[in-house]
């Protein structure tokens, strides 16, 4: 290639066509693409995210948010069923809670970069780390759940079984809700902005999942609490989700309505509403069709809860991927102070 420039001791001279190429480069310091209509103008480094991507697998961690919530609320409902003399409702919930917490533990270990070092979680206790606190909660909760289920299924040591059921139920509400603090205590914009509302969303989602499990596992005659909890859980989740959407506002909150997160959260609302209605109807439809309707409603409620967790996980990822969710609110906050 012919070089049309020359360098003398006085400096570079002549045509330097390469230098002109910069004129075609996008406006550096701005986003590379012009913001769409109505989009806020903001600066970024070549449109790259400020935060590093969340290193968790959705299957493991969103999956855990679901199974942990299911386990926790199931243990609470199981204890309620026990205390109110509904053994046929209590048993599937106890067994389900054990299954769900086992899957949870597997998912948590699987997601570690070094699964063999899982026990390092237990070398310390840190109140500043929701994950540390949560690990200890699970460490107490897991064995109690196993005892409760084993005693119920085998009929052995009923007193230990009763005590374990109540013990598990005492810790279980935290199993179902601490995960909200786990994800909210991060710089992920939509999770942290929603740190006040997420615990209620999670508690309600867990409640409707446990209700779903109860509807699947228990005969209609003993499933009354599950039916009522289905309605209460879905109603509470709709209200808490609405509060979350309001809190996160039109900018950051838009990730709750877009793309995969938006689809999953919308599906969750539809499935939850259908599940709650099905649960109510199952009480008045006689015979086997009532039982079948209850099971279908229960499956819908479980799916709704899973959709909520995977949807909120995807929303978190989306709010990290675009720097505007990090930069614009912080810019506004900083400008408001000056």
């Amino acid at each position, binding site marked *: 290639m012919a070089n049309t420039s020359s360098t003398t001791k006085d400096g570079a001279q002549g045509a330097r066509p390469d230098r002109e190429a910069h004129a075609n480069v996008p406006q550096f310091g701005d986003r590379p693409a012009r913001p769409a209509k109505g989009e806020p103008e903001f600066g970024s*480094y070549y449109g790259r995210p400020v935060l590093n991507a969340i290193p968790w697998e959705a299957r493991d961690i969103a999956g855990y948010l679901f199974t942990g919530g299911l386990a926790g609320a199931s243990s609470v409902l199981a204890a309620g069923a026990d205390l109110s003399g509904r053994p046929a409702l209590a048993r599937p919930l106890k067994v389900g809670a054990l299954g769900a917490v086992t899957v949870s533990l597997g998912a948590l270990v699987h997601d570690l970069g070094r699964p063999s070092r899982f026990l390092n979680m237990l070398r310390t206790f840190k109140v500043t780390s929701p994950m540390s606190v949560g690990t200890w909660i699970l460490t107490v909760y897991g064995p109690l759940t196993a005892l409760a289920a084993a005693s119920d299924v085998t009929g052995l040591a009923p007193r230990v079984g009763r005590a374990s059921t109540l013990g598990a139920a005492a810790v279980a509400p935290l199993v179902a809700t601490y995960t909200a603090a786990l994800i909210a*205590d991060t710089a992920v914009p939509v999770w942290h902005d929603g740190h006040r509302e997420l615990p209620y969303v999670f508690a309600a989602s867990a409640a409707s999942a446990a209700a779903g499990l109860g509807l699947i596992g228990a005969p209609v005659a003993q499933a009354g609490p599950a039916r009522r909890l289905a309605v209460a859980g879905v109603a509470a989740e709709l209200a808490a989700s609405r509060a979350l959407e309001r809190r996160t506002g039109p900018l950051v909150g838009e990730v709750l309505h877009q793309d995969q997160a938006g689809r999953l959260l919308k599906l969750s609302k539809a499935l939850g509403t259908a599940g709650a209605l099905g649960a109510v109807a199952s009480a008045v439809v006689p015979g086997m069709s009532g039982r079948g309707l209850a099971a279908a409603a229960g499956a819908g409620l479980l799916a709704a809860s899973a959709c909520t967790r995977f949807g909120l996980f995807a929303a978190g990822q989306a709010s990290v991927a675009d720097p505007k969710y990090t930069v614009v609110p912080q810019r506004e906050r900083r400008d408001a102070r000056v």
Partner: protein
Amino acid sequence: MSPDPATDTGHVDAPPRMGFFTDTSICIGCKACEVACKEWNQIPEDGLEFTGMSFDNTQGLGADTWRHVAFIEQSQPDGDLRWLMDSDVCKHCTHAACLDVCPTGALVRTEFGTVVVQEDICNGCGYCVPACPYGVIDKRPADGLVHKCTLCYDRLGEGQEPACAKACPTNSIQFGELEVLRVRAGERVEALHESGVPEAQLYGHDPEDGVGGDGAFFLLLDEPETYGLPPDPVVTTRDLPRMARHVGIAALALVAGVAACTAGGR
């Protein structure tokens, strides 16, 4: 008197807090810091991609990039082109979210007030990654563990300065006692304002900011976000008491709800 994180952690007779002052107004974008850091800390290669982002194929901080030189080309109103360069690094926050959320205690505060990952403790849970408001620490796929700048903890122990500062040919990266650096940075920004660079501003120097001030702070010639830095980062653990309260109320509501639902006859 700003808080001393080493003493707060429990170090007795801690040496003065050490840090970086990165003066981007004299950075020439040579990337000697990136190279020196990689060499000294034996950080593996992490791919070579052509990004089209000026002279920056490094792209950003991560598990295998502990110093990252940002290149920004800006068209000025008069048609001229301006180049901004900034060697970014872990901020070694006074209130470090990565350290707060680490469930194993792998992340620790050193006697120099810096934040370091103990590689033999980390189990790769990855919680510190989304916790960091600056996008610094990250997980290395090859070993599943998190890695970041140690402020050359091994060199500090020997009275040496970190490799990046040692290699910097213009003294854009200045290493020293944080209190001294803050004074020097204040003087530098004043001098720049007087010499007709009104846009010069310090970033991360203020102990009153959302992370209690950075152990590694910067002099910038544009807004932080232009360099890929968050304009107003906060340590989210400061909201933990409120989160715990809501988690507790939600847990009680769950119990109350279930109790109400099981109380009925049918």
